[in-house]
């Protein structure tokens, strides 16, 4: 996905993000998912394999290499010019087909991407695959074919369990992602990246791209910067509090 700290520009013609001027970065939320997958592999051992799946332009290969450098075993990348313009639901459809193609026991994802906040994608992928979506996990364990998570709620968490296969989306607090080591980065160059095509995964071309999208951006407007309001420096705390109180009363917020 595009670097979140970069200045964003929308292409006025296509009304899509102009990606040509922005460096790709690994979605911070996905780093948590990769880290959690690696920790699971380390705890389960055996022949557990961690595969990175992404849908990205060819230029996204360096991001996949970074994930491989963290310790993932291999990667699959759906990269096809025809996917340009695919909306969130179309993306979920394509990722679900890709997952069916490569096979899995457990799918880990971030809860959202920081660029478009399309946090509907993980649940939509699960629905396409007919598996449960255990979303917003702040803790995860797998034992005897059962996955258990702590699902973040506003007041605490829910303990939720499900048989595999299942999809789990993880929140930020779940772990501290590792940095790729030099050895890992060197090793990543030899790891296999399988290039997937729409034909290989059996995608219905009428459901993707601009033509298949069920939503359409009609226009967009840049929001002006918030005006700087009054800023006062106070030495007496009561004066500061009173100032705020009067303001809230004037704005009918209290």
């Amino acid at each position, binding site marked *: 996905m595009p670097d979140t700290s970069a200045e964003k520009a929308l292409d006025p013609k296509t009304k899509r993000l102009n990606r040509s001027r922005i460096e790709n970065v690994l979605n911070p939320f996905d780093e948590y998912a990769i880290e959690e997958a690696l920790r699971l592999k380390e705890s389960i051992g055996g022949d557990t394999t961690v595969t990175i799946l992404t849908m990205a332009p060819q230029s996204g290969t360096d991001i996949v290499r970074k994930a491989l450098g963290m310790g993932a075993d291999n990667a699959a990348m759906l990269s096809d010019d025809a996917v340009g313009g695919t909306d969130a639901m179309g993306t979920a459809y394509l990722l679900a087909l890709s997952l069916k193609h490569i096979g899995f026991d457990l799918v880990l994802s971030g809860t959202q991407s920081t660029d478009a*906040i399309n946090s509907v994608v993980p649940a939509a992928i699960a*629905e396409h695959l007919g598996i*449960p979506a255990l979303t917003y996990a702040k803790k995860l364990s797998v034992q005897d074919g059962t996955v258990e998570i702590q699902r973040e709620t506003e007041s605490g968490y829910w*303990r939720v369990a499900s048989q595999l296969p299942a999809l789990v989306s993880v929140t930020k607090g779940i772990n501290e992602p590792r940095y790729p080591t030099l050895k890992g980065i060197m090793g990543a160059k030899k790891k296999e990246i399988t290039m997937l095509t729409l034909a290989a995964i059996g995608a219905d071309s009428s459901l993707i791209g601009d033509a298949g999208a069920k939503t359409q951006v009609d226009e967009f407007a840049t929001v002006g910067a918030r005006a700087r309001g009054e800023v006062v420096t106070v*030495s007496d705390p009561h004066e500061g509090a009173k100032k705020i109180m009067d*303001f809230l009363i004037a704005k009918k917020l209290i």
Partner: protein
Amino acid sequence: MKAVVAFIEHEDGHVRRSGLELATKAADLGRELHVPASAVVLGTGAQDAAQALKTTPIDTIYTGADVPVEQHLGDPAVDALDVLLKQIGPAALLVPATNAGKDTGARVAVRLDAGVITEASDIVVKDGALIVQSPKFGGSVISTIGFKNSPYQVIVCRANSFAARTEPGKGDIVSLPAPPAKQYPARVEEKVVEEAGKISVEEAGIIVSGGRGLGGPEHFDIIEALADALGGAVGASRAAVDAGWIPHAHQVGQTGKTVTPQLYIACGISGAIQHKVGMRSAGIIVAINKDGNAPIFEFCDLGVVGDLFQIVPELTRLVKERKGAA
């Protein structure tokens, strides 16, 4: 389009204001489109929730008290909505932008082959079709989005975006038939409450947030006291969450929640861009910080440069005094 349907969340029959907002919006859109507007409440307490919704202009309230939503993480809600919406025919489904609301909306959309528009801050009718306004890229851009080739339409709505109106409509209550017994692979084993009775930052009308300037977890009690006095929620910056002072569920900003309260009070928060993108759509922003050069003073409506450890408790006292007198 044959109907506008709002999926309303509740807790044991208690409907939050965001639910009333959603029902009111559904009713208004229904009127404009000349189609019936309904609300759906599922799970234990659905009857009580329906009574609360009768205060809104909604035509019909579908209740499914027997749908085991609490036990299976929303999957039964998806089944119930799927069945109901297929009976009703092509409809717009409004869901709240909560964790469960987004999951439910996404799964129902796949079943109905519907388009989904997320983070709606407004919905209008234009030429007989629904047009959605949605902030993108941290609120720096507002997109206007429509549906195409999508008889069913799912819209994920932000809290505090629409006004809730007390204006009873027809309010017919229709009980949904008990769902057929079904084995769901996912089950909720336990609900752990760590902080009882708290409002989530996504739904709160008022948020009081604390940041690095608090200096430690023990000082969040002054933030909480002010939030309680104002009837709001406690938010936090990434610095406070990363330091382990407060759980991630409270984090506002790029790697946390995007919030749209009427009032946001930032205490000891510098206002870095990663925080700003999560709260810049708030109605009014008030900042308290001892550093007069903090970026937050560039985009707040009122800034007070001073000692938050003294100002916040004093403000809490003034708020309580006023509310007590009222």
